[in-house]
Structures are given as C-alpha cells and as structure tokens.
C-alpha cells in the first residue's frame, strides 16, 4: 500500500534515531548504577573468594547433603501448608464476617516482626506438643509464626482486590451448595493469587 505523505509536514524522526535516544542514559544514572553494582557485587565476590571458587562444586558430593536437602524441602512444604491452612480461612472469615477486627488482626500479625526471634522461639517451645519437641518439624511451627506477617498481608491485599463479599453473595444466590463451593473455590483462588511469586 502506498504511503501518502504531506510535503508541508515537518520531517519525522526515524525509528533508529528514536531507539538510540531511548538507549542512552544520562551520566548520573550510570554513576548510580555503578555504585549500586559495587555495593552488591563486592560482598558476593568476597564470599566466593573466601570459600574458594572450587568449593561450591563439591557441595553436592558432601555427606548428608541429600538428606539435608530433602529435610529442607519437607519443612518448606509443611510450613507452607500450615500457613495456608491457618491463614487463608481465617483471613476469608474476617473479611466476610468480622471486618471490624481487621485492624486488630493486622496489629497481631505484625508482632512476629517486632518481637525478637529468640522470644518467639521460646514461646513456640512452650506451647508446642511434646511429640514435636526434639524433631526438625518443630522448625515448621516457628517458620509459620515468622512468616505470618507476610502471609497475612499478601492474603489481605488479594482479598481486598477480590470483592469477596459480592462473590459469596452471588454464589449464595445460585444454590444451597453455592456458598460452600464458592468458599472453597475462593480459598483456592486466593491462595493461588497471593502465593504466586511476584517478579
């Protein structure tokens, strides 16, 4: 298709010139990028230099590595499951039935950040069941407490964007099992949205 140009219109910049203009940054931005790079990369280099560049290749052949890795994965799965089982229904219930206590819940869930971890651990040890004491899975309980502020806020933000009350009302109007189906569905949607890694 032939292009129609107006002879009286000013000449337009070519695409290459526009791209070149976008790629060039002011000098001060390069200075900041360089400073930030040095701040983050030097400690990493120092760690690598101290431990030896060849050391990391031997990690996988160390005795007990696979057991430790499997245990870490198990603890991660248990911690995640426990956090979701505890936090998702609680957050949904508070959003639907007790919106007035949301500020109180926000204050409670921020306590693990302000209370020293040692104190938290002592508290968990005090209330944990005897069967867990002495096992690695006690760590999962502690991790659940430490992750609570972040889990709650992530879920709360996701639910606020979901207009949960209207969705539950809609499901309720559609049939007797609608509410429980929707509740379960909402839990899964909420957990999926809020636990999705944010790049």
């Amino acid at each position, binding site marked *: 298709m032939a292009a129609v140009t107006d002879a009286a219109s000013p000449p337009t910049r070519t695409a290459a010139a526009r791209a070149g203009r976008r790629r060039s940054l002011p000098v001060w931005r390069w200075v900041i990028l360089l400073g930030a790079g040095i701040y983050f990369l030097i400690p990493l280099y120092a760690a690598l230099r101290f431990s030896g560049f060849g050391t990391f290749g031997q990690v996988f052949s160390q005795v007990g590595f696979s057991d430790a890795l499997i245990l870490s994965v198990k603890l991660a799965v248990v911690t995640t499951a426990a956090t979701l089982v505890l936090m998702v229904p609680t957050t949904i219930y508070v959003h639907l039935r007790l919106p007035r206590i949301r500020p109180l819940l926000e204050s409670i869930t921020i306590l693990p950040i302000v209370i020293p971890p040692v104190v938290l651990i002592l508290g968990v040890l005090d209330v944990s069941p005897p069967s867990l004491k002495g096992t690695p899975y006690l760590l999962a309980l502690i991790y659940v407490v430490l992750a609570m502020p972040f889990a709650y806020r992530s879920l709360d933000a996701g639910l606020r964007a979901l207009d949960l009350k209207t969705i539950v009302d809609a499901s309720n109007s559609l049939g007797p099992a*609608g509410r429980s189906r929707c509740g379960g569905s909402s839990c899964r*949607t909420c957990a999926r949205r809020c636990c999705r890694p944010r790049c």
Partner: protein
Amino acid sequence: MWIVNFDQTSGPVSVASGCGKTTALRILAGFEIADAGSVTVNGKDISPVPAAKRDMGMVFQSYSLFPNMSAMENVGFGLRMRRMAAAERKRRAGELLEMVGLTEHARHYPHQLSGGQQQRVALARALAIEPQVLLLDEPLSALDAKVRLQLQEQIRSMQQRLGTTTLFVTHDQEEALSMADRVGVMKEGKLEQIAMPDHLYAHPATAFVAEFAGTMNRVPGELTDAGQVRALGTVVPVHGDQPGGALTEVDVLVRPEGLKIEAVPGGNGIVTGRAFLGSVTRISVRLSGDVTVKVDHPSADAGSFAPGTSVRISLPGAAVLVTQRR
C-alpha cells in the same frame, strides 16, 4: 426503615432514587434480615427462607463473576449446584451465552472480558437457574453510556422473552422510565409511588415523585377556599393532597410542557434563554420574584421567543400538584 411487601407482578418494577433501595433488594434476596415485616412471593411468606433457597437470581453492581472460572463455567455454576448433568449443563449454559451474544467468549475468564461483557455473563448466570424473580442492583451504573444503552435494550428484550419477574434498582430516572413496565420511587426506605411510567410522570402522587421523575417547575401560588390554587393569574384545581395546616401560600408543581407561553408586551416574564431539544425548545423565563421556569414549546414557533422577549406564562387549566413553599 419501612418494610415493603412487593406483590408478584407480571413485569419489571424499577425502584429508583433515595436511600434504602439496595437494602430493600438485599432483604428480598435474603442477604439482610429485616427488623420487621415480611417478604412474600406468590402469596407465600419466604422471610425465614435462606438466600440460597429463595429461587432468586441476582446481578450486582460490581462485577461478581468468579475469577477462577471461565464464562461458560460461571453461567453453569448454579446448574452445577443443582446437580444437573454435565452435558445438559453445557448445553444450557451455551444457550444462555448465545442469548447474551457471548458464544465466542465462552472460554474467556473474567479478566479477559470488558465490563459490559462481564455483566452480560452475570445476567446469563442469574437466569440459568430459571429464578422466580430476577434482582438487578444497579447493574449498569459502572458502564459507559453507550454500553449502558445497549445492555438496557438487551435486558429488556430478555426479560420480555423469558417472562421473568424482574426488579431493577437504579438511581437513573431515565433508565427507570424507559425500561420498566412499572416504576417505584423510594424515599428514605419507603415507596412513595408505584405506577406505570407514563402515569408516574403525568400524575405524581407526591412532590418528591414529581420532582424526581422529569423536570418540574415550582411556581408560587395561593390556595383558595374552594380547594383550588391561584397561580400565574389563573385559578386551577388541585390534584392530590394539599399541604397540612393553615398554609395558603404554596408552590405549584408543573411540568415544562404544562405551561402556556405567549409573546406579549408587559407580560409576567422575560425570556432568559432557549435550549433546542429537537421537536421542542425549552425556553427559560424569569418571572417576578426571581422565579425561573422552563417551558417547552414547539421548535417551529420558538423563534419568536428570543432572549429578552416579554412573555406571559399561564396555566392551561388542568389540575396541578401543590407542595409546601420553600
């Protein structure tokens, strides 16, 4: 709040204006519990019946689609709750999506649909369960004007085709008057009047309804001993209730098309402006006492009413509504 018993009707009733309309709708749907009174459908008291068993479909103002389900799954959700077989459910949902013109979007998720499309899916979902009553809580208020007009026509035609009793709540009087078989006007939780749109417009029961439905002029008047009112040099009968007490000074409520205008020197008003509305022109006239009225006159003759023209405004003689003077 006042509790209202809605009788089963053969067509839609719009509840417009004032506060309490959404609360009344939610009480009907079973999401709120009334302090007193009852909700009856077809003569049966359903007040103690939970929302899930009231057989009412509802479309909300905010898009209420389930975000983890496609349009087809959303429409079929109510049928799945009723344990309909998968094949039959798919067929029925497909029919409804075709009815709202969204067959090609059946597999799309809510975030992939526009606002108007989402509301159409919500409408199909509410109708899928073949409800006794369809409740619409300002479903079009979040949409732009063009999409709103299209959906108004679509909702109206679907309602007529299916014959479902529909209660449409809106704050837009034009929407209420154009869509409904009967219109109800609410004020502070109480229904002021339920009537057909033309009757509501021509014979408003109260001053609130009169001023809500369409443009209304307020002209100073005086009640006479004979139960009539003198205004603009004319004595006319009074329609409806008169203000209580010993008041004789009132405001007469009259529509722009209910006033007569003549260009005469030394009249009782001066033209201050004109607005061309098509077949009629709305002429603004300032009367004595700093009262301004709007008069509708055929556009063919409106040329003689230029701004600054002296005119006489009068009442033709039909009964008018009066209210307490402001």
